[in-house]
């Protein structure tokens, strides 16, 4: 079975671990082997949270530099920071809603320019899907659903061996009832947002 490697980067509290769990559940129901790894010791202290998911016949749970098929970034500067995990055939999906690190507020760094950031990623990888996931999460009804928006975009690319139905079932089993409608709406909005990128590319 083909091996597909996915890296997710986020800032503590953005819900990437839950998104990873849902992908894991969906893979289980699809009968696809998956190995995941996460680093989250300092997550609640404002640090970076990274998960790696390896689908298919591999034993490793982590992904070396250059070996990610997809990089999913919940925060644009963190996406850029993880770019060395990609190769020229990688697809990058990123939210464009910045969460500036505190170092920026105390003048110990400059937040990268978003246009330049996108240009850089686009020039080195196969495809960039970039949009403001926070806005879509708000539109769905809850800023905490950013993770579902990005999950929608991820599934739309069709690179993972997971179908929309399988992931939606996983979302249903892993979401508290009162958040379910918002989460599913957020997923659909992210899916549609990513769809526009494939249409855009086709029309060019």
């Amino acid at each position, binding site marked *: 079975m083909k091996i597909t490697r996915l890296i997710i980067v986020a800032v503590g509290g953005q819900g990437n671990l839950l998104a990873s769990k849902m992908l*894991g559940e969906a893979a289980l129901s699809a009968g696809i082997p998956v*190995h995941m*790894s996460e*680093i989250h010791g300092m997550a*609640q*202290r404002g640090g970076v949270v990274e998960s790696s998911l390896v689908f298919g016949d591999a034993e490793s*749970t982590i992904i070396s530099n*250059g070996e990610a098929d997809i990089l999913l970034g919940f925060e644009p500067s963190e996406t850029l920071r993880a770019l060395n995990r990609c190769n020229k055939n990688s697809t990058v999906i990123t939210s464009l809603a910045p969460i500036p690190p505190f170092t920026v507020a105390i003048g110990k*760094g400059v937040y990268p320019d978003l246009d330049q950031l996108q240009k850089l990623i686009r020039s080195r990888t196969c495809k960039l899907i970039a949009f403001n996931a926070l806005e879509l999460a708000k539109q769905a009804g809850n800023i905490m659903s950013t993770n579902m928006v990005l999950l929608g975009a991820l599934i739309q690319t069709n690179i993972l061996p997971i179908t929309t139905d399988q992931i939606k079932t996983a979302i249903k089993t892993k979401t508290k009832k009162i958040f379910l409608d918002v989460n599913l709406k957020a997923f659909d909005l992210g899916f549609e947002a990513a769809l526009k990128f494939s249409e855009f590319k086709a029309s060019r």
Partner: protein
Amino acid sequence: MHKLLQEQTGAKIMLLGNESIARGAIEAGVAFATTYPGTPSSEISLNLFQISQESDLYFEYSTNEKVSLEVAAAAANSGLRTLCMMKHVGLNVAADPLMTLAYVGVKGGLVIISADDPFMFSSQNEQDNRYYAKLSGLPMLEPSCVAEAKEMMVQAFDLSEKLQEPVIFRTTTRINHSSAFVDLGNIKPRIVKGHFERDPFNYVTVPAVSRNLHVKLLKNIKKAALESEASALNFINGDGPLGVICNGVSFSYVSDAVKDLKIADKLKVLRIGFSNPLPENLIKKFLADCLKVLIVEEGEPFLEEAVKAMAQEAGLTLEIKGKSDKLFSRLYEFDPAMVRTSIANYFDLPDRPGIAVSTDDLPEIPARPPNLCAGCSHRATFYEVKTAANEMGLDIICPTDIGCYTLGFLPPLSMGDFVICMGSSVSSACGFAKATDQKVVAFIGDSTFFHSGITGLINAVFNNHNITLVILDNSITAMTGHQPNPGVDMNNFNLSGYGQVKIQEIVKAAGVKHITMIKPFKVKKSISEIKKALEYKGVSVIISQEICSLYAKSIKQLSDRSFYITDKCKNHRDCINEIACPAFFLDADQVKIDAVACVGCAVCAQICPENAILPLPKKQS
């Protein structure tokens, strides 16, 4: 019902490595479990703590790892299947009981988990605890993946009972914090009450007894070697003249490399899962069948040195390498591509070229270091001690300790000058105070104080050192995920039947004459109280009491009231420059407060020179 208690034998579920280990213990019929929390082991104990609340499993958070192992030693010698878990550096604390418990042995199975942390994701060092197995003479098992961890845990209990010795179960972060599918097995019934057979001539380790017990231990090591030799946990994959010997997660990377490089017919892999004692005959036979061998192990050359010695004994002269400048480092952790490339280079095989995009010319991305949370009481205390010392013109040294508050060493607080291990703040303060004329102010958290700060404090009183100890009491073990400690009100966990130890009473009983209680969110009052403590010659203790804001939020004790910055702000930026709460951000060069992040501690409002920070009007509910 807790998901790890489900009886559905054969069901496949997705588990975190630490959940898989906990499930393995449950399937083995573990009846008694002790720990002191420490990443990357924490979720094992968290799950067992939860399970103990709905079953007859006994679980305790002990005051430290030494206590935890001693409690476990008694339970196991009363015949119960017992699990004692800790992070790698915890085993240093428990090393004293470990060494002699190996002489004494156990009756019921005792498994000791050492969760090592290569790369130091959340630790002060990356020591390789495999040497503890060698040092103590105890058998050691090491899983290579999440699913195997569960199966191996059951085998560890069986092995411990068979050999009547504790078994060390050694993991690394990438086992603890990886997830994969796990097949559930049968749960053995728990036997929760034991009986201790008095046998002082085998249990009371006076020299005359220990001389016999050491003989017994050496016999047991021989028996364990036979077990290792016959164990299915040491196995060979593939075939060919080239050989790799590996352990733990490295086995996963090696397996992927063999597939990637398509060399299953050229290279055979000896996976060592039972790693002390090593299967000497198996290894010698493996070496004899190889032209060249590479040892793939993270950390120290534990296998490498042993394998080379075995080759010498067997009169074999083949090339054996592992750690070297051109191959593997003793530093940090491995990754799949690194292992693949090293295998290709060492055996002269074609490798897949590196394909990572170039990132040399990327703009500098601002660092995102972890930070004390918005509304963290430690921030307030650090600011107040710093201000008090500055106003008194004191040149201070701040030995600090292990917990969230270690982060106080970062600018702009910069309150933290020396840390080596749990409890070292107060004892190293004693040394600094005698060796220098500088004023010493040490910081320690509540859980760390109970863990190993008390003895240092008593030392300070007895030897009359001139130190101030600040105990940052946020009423929980915060860093590792809000575990209880002896100072915690267990009603917060909806649990009864626990005692509660007051830090103030301990400090008083230790003979400290100058004790100050402060509420750190009252800035002015705290600073003036701190000054009095700093003036005192001798041992003074400041207990700064305020609940962890994250914990308060999780138990719904937080009176959430956000603050905002009014247009009186003249951009002095004392708030950002002095206390650096992550709720602040800059918007068009003006400081703003993120109302979602702000928990309303009001510390910034008290230090703003323009009084420009005010509470938001209460939300209408």
